[in-house]
C-alpha cells in the first residue's frame, strides 16, 4: 500500500511529467486543458503505469469517503481498487464540489466521479475498438485492459491507450458550483448487480500514517522563512481597540505587533515567542458591557425575542380548528444550548502571499471557499489564490478553520512573509462559530379514541447561518468583521424531518436577532447536522409524550403514524435488534430522516441517582442510506455520530456571563470521556442497492439526544426537556422522585 505522500507523488507527478524529456511524443504536444468541470481531464487521469487518479472537489475528514469514491470509480472504470488514487481538496487540481458539506460526499460528490469514470471507460473502449479493429460491443475490460471477447490475444491497456496523456474530451456541466455542481455524460452507468468493489468493507489509506506519525497535518506545514502568528481575540464581543502597547512585548526578540483596526496579532520567528507575546501584549480594549443575557435566562430571552423570520414548511389541514376539538391536549417545550465545535486542536493555517498570488494551506473542510474568501479579502483574482486542504484537527462544520485561513492570508499580506497561524485552546472553544441555542414549542391534540387530530412543532432560535456555511466572504470571518465588514446574517433554521401522517399538522421555525451583530463569540453557524440534534431532541421526545398520552407504545405509535415505508423499516429493524419489549427497562427510541437517509436509534441507559450520572450503556442503530458503498467505513462513521451525539446530549453547553463566553477550554466545556463511552453500539445496515446512496456523516447524530432522553424517562418516569442532560440537571430533576 502506498503511503499518502507516495501516492501524491505518483499521481501529482502527472502534470510535471509532461515536461520530462523522453516521455511519449504525443504527450509533449498536449497542453493540459484548464481546470473546468466541462473537461473530463478535470475529473480523471490515467497515469503511465496504469494507475488512475481522480480529482475530488470534496474531501474526507476521516470517515473513509475517499475510499468510497475509489470503490465507485474502480467499478465504473473496471480497474482494481488499489490502482485508484483520490486527490482531494487542492483548488489547483479539483473543481469546486463544495468541500465536505451536508453529508453529500457520496451522494453529490462521488456521483460526478462515477459519471466521469464511466465516460472515461467509454472513450477508452472506443479507442481500443479502433486500435484493435474490433467493435466496441465485442470488447470487455478487466482491470484496466481491454480485451476482444472472442480473441483474448487482442488486447490493449488503458495505460497504452492514454497513460500520462489527457483525454481532451468534454462533458456536460450544469454551470453550478459547490454541492450543486453536476455533470452529464453519454456513457451508460453500470447497474448495481454489476458492482464488484462497491459494497466491500475495504480499509482506509490514512490510518497507518496517523498511527505511526509518519505524515503531516496542516499544523505541520512549514514554509521557508515563515513567521508564527497568534491572533488576539478580544476579551468581550464587539470590542474596539483604543491602543496597543507595543513596548509590552519588547523583551521578546523578533516579536512584533500587527494591527488593522480592531484586528490584532503578534508575529515572531519562533512559535513559543509568538505564544508568549500574545500572552504579554497589553491592549486597551473598549469593551461592550452586558452584551449577553444572564445565562440562566437564555431561554426566556429566546422566547421573548422578536421574530426576524418565520417559515412554515409543513402546513396541512386546519390545525387551529382541530385543536379546538381536542379531548386531550399535550404541550411541552424543549430547550437546547449553544454548542461549540471545540475541535480536537485549535485551527491552524499557513499562508504565503506574494505580490500577485497566494497559497494557503488550510484544515478547512471547504478549501475552494477558502480560496474565494482569501481572494476577496486580499483583492486578488480568484485564480491567483491556491488553497490546499491538509488534514486538520477534525472538522464537523464551519469551525475555527475558516477564520484561521483568512487570518493567515491577511497577516501574510501585511507582513510580506509566509505566516503560520494557530489558535490557542480558547480560540477553538470560546471563539468558534456556535451551534444556535433554541427553544421548541410543541402541541398535540388527541381525540377520545386516542387518535392524534392536531400536531404543531415550532422551533425558535438564533439563525443557523448568521455566519455562512463557508468562508467565501470576509463578512463571515472574524478578521473581516474586525476590520469593519458587516456580517450578512442569513436567517434560517429548520423543522423535524419525518413522515408522521397527522391530518392537521404544522411544522414551523422562527429566528431571532443575534445577541451581538458583529465579532461575537456567540455568533451562530453550522455544526455537525446543523439544528438536527437540537430540533429532534424536542420533536422525538414529544412523539413519545404524545404516544404516552394516547396510551400507545412508542414503537407501535411511530409505526402507526409514519407514512414512508423506509421510515417504518428502520423503526422496526432497530426495535427488533434492541429486543424492544415492555417498557421500564431504561430504553428509549428516536427516529428521523435526513436528506433521504432514515435512521432509528434505541438507547438503553443507567441512572445513578446519587451522582446524577446518566450512562448510555447500549446503543442500537438501524440505518438506511440506500446503496451501501463500504459497510466497514459506514459503521465507523455511524459510531462516531453516536458518541459525538452522546457528548452533545449529556455534557456540551457553552457557558457565558453577561460580558463574555466562559467556556474556554475542556474544563469549562466538558465533553464525553472514556468512562462514559457506551459499552456497545450495534448497527443494522439496511442496504438498498436499487436506491442511489444518500449521506451518513450526520443523520445518526440527530436522533441520539431524544433516544437518550426517552430512555431516561423510561428508566425514571421523569422528562428532561433541557439539554444537556448533565449530572446537575439529572439530580435536580430526580429530586423528590
Amino acid at each position, binding site marked *: 500500500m502506498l503511503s499518502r505522500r507516495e501516492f501524491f507523488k505518483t499521481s501529482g507527478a502527472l502534470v510535471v511529467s509532461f515536461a520530462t524529456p523522453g516521455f511519449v511524443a504525443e504527450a509533449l504536444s498536449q497542453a493540459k486543458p484548464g481546470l473546468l468541470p466541462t473537461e473530463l481531464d478535470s475529473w480523471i487521469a490515467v497515469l503511465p503505469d496504469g494507475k488512475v487518479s481522480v480529482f475530488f472537489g470534496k474531501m474526507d475528514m476521516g470517515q473513509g469517503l475517499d475510499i468510497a469514491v475509489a470503490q465507485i470509480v474502480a467499478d465504473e472504470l473496471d480497474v482494481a481498487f488499489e490502482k485508484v488514487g483520490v486527490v482531494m481538496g487542492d483548488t489547483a487540481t479539483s473543481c469546486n464540489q463544495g468541500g465536505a458539506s451536508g453529508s453529500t460526499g457520496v451522494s453529490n460528490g462521488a456521483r460526478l466521479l462515477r459519471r466521469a469514470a464511466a465516460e472515461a471507460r467509454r472513450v477508452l473502449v472506443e479507442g481500443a475498438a479502433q486500435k484493435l479493429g474490433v467493435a466496441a460491443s465485442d470488447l470487455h475490460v478487466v482491470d484496466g485492459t481491454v480485451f476482444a471477447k472472442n480473441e483474448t490475444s487482442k488486447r490493449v491497456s488503458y495505460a497504452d491507450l492514454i497513460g500520462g496523456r489527457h483525454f481532451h474530451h468534454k462533458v456536460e456541466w450544469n454551470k453550478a458550483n459547490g454541492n450543486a455542481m453536476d455533470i452529464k455524460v453519454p456513457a451508460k452507468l453500470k447497474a448495481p448487480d454489476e458492482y464488484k468493489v462497491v459494497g466491500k468493507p475495504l480499509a482506509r489509506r490514512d490510518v497507518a500514517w496517523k*498511527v505511526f506519525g509518519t505524515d503531516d497535518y496542516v499544523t505541520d506545514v512549514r514554509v521557508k522563512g515563515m513567521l508564527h502568528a497568534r491572533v488576539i481575540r478580544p476579551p468581550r464581543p464587539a470590542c474596539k481597540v483604543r491602543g496597543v502597547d507595543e513596548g509590552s512585548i519588547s523583551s521578546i526578540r523578533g516579536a512584533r505587533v500587527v494591527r488593522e483596526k480592531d484586528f490584532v496579532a503578534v508575529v515572531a520567528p519562533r512559535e513559543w515567542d509568538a505564544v508568549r507575546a500574545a500572552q504579554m501584549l497589553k491592549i486597551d480594549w473598549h469593551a461592550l458591557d452586558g452584551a449577553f443575557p444572564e445565562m440562566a435566562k437564555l431561554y426566556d430571552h429566546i422566547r421573548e425575542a422578536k421574530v426576524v423570520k418565520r417559515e412554515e414548511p409543513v402546513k396541512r389541514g386546519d390545525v387551529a380548528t382541530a385543536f379546538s376539538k381536542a379531548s386531550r391536549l399535550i404541550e411541552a417545550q424543549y430547550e437546547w444550548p449553544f454548542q461549540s465545535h471545540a475541535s*480536537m486542536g485549535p485551527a491552524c493555517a499557513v499562508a504565503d502571499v506574494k505580490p500577485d498570488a497566494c497559497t494557503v494551506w488550510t484544515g478547512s473542510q471547504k478549501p475552494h471557499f477558502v480560496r474565494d474568501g482569501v481572494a476577496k479579502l486580499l483583492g486578488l483574482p480568484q485564480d491567483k489564490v491556491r488553497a490546499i486542504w491538509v488534514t486538520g*484537527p477534525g472538522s464537523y462544520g464551519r469551525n475555527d478553520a475558516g477564520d484561521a485561513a483568512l487570518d493567515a492570508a491577511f497577516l501574510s499580506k501585511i507582513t510580506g512573509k509566509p505566516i503560520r497561524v*494557530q489558535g490557542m485552546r480558547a480560540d477553538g472553544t470560546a471563539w468558534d462559530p456556535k451551534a444556535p441555542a433554541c427553544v421548541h414549542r410543541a402541541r398535540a391534540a388527541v381525540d377520545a379514541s386516542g387518535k392524534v387530530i392536531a400536531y404543531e412543532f415550532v422551533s425558535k432560535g438564533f439563525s443557523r447561518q448568521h455566519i455562512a456555511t463557508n468562508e467565501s466572504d470576509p463578512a463571515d470571518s472574524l478578521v473581516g468583521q474586525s476590520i469593519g465588514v458587516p456580517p450578512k446574517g442569513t436567517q434560517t433554521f429548520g423543522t423535524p424531518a419525518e413522515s408522521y401522517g397527522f391530518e392537521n399538522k404544522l411544522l414551523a421555525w422562527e429566528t431571532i436577532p443575534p445577541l451581538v451583530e458583529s465579532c461575537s463569540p456567540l455568533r451562530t453557524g453550522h455544526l455537525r447536522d446543523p439544528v438536527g440534534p437540537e430540533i429532534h431532541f424536542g420533536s422525538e421526545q414529544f412523539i413519545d409524550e404524545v404516544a404516552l398520552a394516547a396510551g400507545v407504545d412508542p414503537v407501535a405509535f411511530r409505526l402507526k403514524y409514519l407514512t414512508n415505508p423506509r421510515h417504518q423499516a428502520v423503526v422496526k429493524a432497530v426495535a427488533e435488534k434492541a429486543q424492544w419489549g415492555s417498557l421500564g427497562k431504561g430504553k428509549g427510541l428516536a427516529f428521523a430522516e435526513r436528506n433521504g437517509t432514515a435512521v432509528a436509534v434505541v438507547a438503553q441507559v443507567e441512572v445513578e441517582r446519587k451522582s446524577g450520572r446518566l450512562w448510555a450503556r447500549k446503543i442500537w442503530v438501524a440505518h438506511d442510506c440506500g446503496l451501501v458503498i463500504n459497510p466497514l467505513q459506514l459503521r465507523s462513521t455511524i459510531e462516531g455520530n453516536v458518541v459525538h451525539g452522546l457528548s452533545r446530549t449529556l455534557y456540551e453547553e457553552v457557558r457565558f456571563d453577561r460580558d463574555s463566553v466562559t467556556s474556554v477550554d475542556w474544563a469549562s466545556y466538558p465533553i464525553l*470521556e472514556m468512562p462514559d463511552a457506551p459499552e456497545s453500539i450495534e448497527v443494522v445496515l439496511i442496504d438498498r442497492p436499487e436506491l442511489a446512496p444518500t449521506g451518513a456523516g450526520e443523520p445518526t447524530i440527530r436522533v441520539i439526544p431524544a433516544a437518550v432522553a426517552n430512555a431516561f424517562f423510561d428508566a425514571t418516569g421523569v422528562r428532561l426537556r433541557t439539554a444537556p442532560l448533565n449530572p446537575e440537571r439529572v439530580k435536580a430533576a430526580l429530586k423528590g422522585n
Partner: protein
Amino acid sequence: MPTYRFRVDGKNVSVNAEEEMPLLYALRNDLGLNNPHFGCGLAQCGACTVHLEGEPVRSCVMPVSAAAGKAVTTIKGLGTPDKPHPLQAAYVSEQVPQCGYCVNGWIMTAAAYLKKNPKASDGELRDALSGLKCRCGTHVSILRAIKRAQQQMA
C-alpha cells in the same frame, strides 16, 4: 538561552530554549518532529503525549528543562510500520482514528498503562484513559483496539 540535552526516540539531541518553554515546542519546532500535536496547551486533552523515561507526560505543559538528561519517546519511536507496537497494529486493524489528531494521547497513555497492568479490565481501562479527548467519537473502537492489543501482548 540555556542548552538542554536529552534523547528522543533513541537519538541524542540538544535544544536551546528558555527553561520554561514546553517540551512540545522543542519537539515540533526545534527537532522537526511533527507527530505530537498541540491540542490545548493545558494538559487537558492528551494530543501532545510522549513518554519521558517510559511514563506518559503532556509535553504541552512540561518544560523542556525537565527533559534534560532523560529519554523521550514519541509515537514514532514507539513503533514503526515494519515493527509496530501492538497498540499501533491494533489501531490499524480496527481502523480506529478518524481525524487522528488525538492518537498520541490514547496510544502513548495506553502503552504505558498496559505495561503496568497488562490484564486491565474494561472498567480499569476506561478509568485509566479518562482525561483524554477524542472529538470524532471513536471511543468504542479505541477500546476494541486496546483489547485486541492486550490479547496480542498476553
